[in-house]
């Protein structure tokens, strides 16, 4: 199936948001994930299955302040 990830159409296998991110070496706790305009973090990201056409954006949380 295809999702739009970071603005680009991306082919991916069926799985969860956290699984998709883990496959890209992105620990879900190190980012804010936005799925179809809603924040999807923590347990939600572990449970939420991606569907064809989903729009997923992630924003890295890095140190500095």
């Amino acid at each position, binding site marked *: 199936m295809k999702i739009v990830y970071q603005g680009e159409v991306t082919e991916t296998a069926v799985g969860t948001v956290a699984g998709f991110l883990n496959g890209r070496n992105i620990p879900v*706790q*190190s980012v*804010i994930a*936005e799925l179809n*305009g*809603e*924040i999807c*973090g*923590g347990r939600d990201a572990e449970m939420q299955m991606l569907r064809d056409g989903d729009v997923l*954006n992630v*924003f*890295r*949380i*890095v*140190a*500095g*302040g």
Partner: protein
Amino acid sequence: MTANVYLSGEERAILESARIGIAGAGGLGSNCAAHLVRAGVRRLVIADFDTVAASNLNRQFFFRDQLGRKKIDALRENLLRIEPGLELEMRDVRLDAGNIASVFASCGIVAEAFDCAEAKAMLLRELLPAGKTVVAASGIAGWGKSGAITVRRIGNNLVMVGDFKTGVDPAAGIHPASPRVGIAAAMQANSIVALILKKEL
């Protein structure tokens, strides 16, 4: 009274009635607070446990004669020099998952102003599901690339500023410094004022 003589009566009333939380009084928090006060915000809840160190003076709204003092005390003093009529609730506390919601219970909007990535994530994890509006920052270290720092509305109740990439990395020589941290702090304050006044971010 507020520090901003250019406000309309309506804007003044709206800004004066808002109560804004600031989690951390370092580079982001101290400068964001000063911008908010100058803009016309009068009520702030600011939490920090730390003292002013020499390494803070490259970016934080403190002065050399305040070294060693509690940041909340020094910041209170500095903000009151801008506007004596402020209502400041300064909390000497290390914020964590167990206390952050109660510290900011009276605030509709909270600025995330930590330096540590884990603390930033903790705040988002605790306050967003509770429906609090959070204005956070990520990716503000180093020099240059001013235009890479953007404001993003994420979901219903999160605004983030930063480039989401450039974190503090001492081994790589990437440190927080006044220009970029200041840009981000100003963007956080600007976003908060826009949210309060229901303007475009």
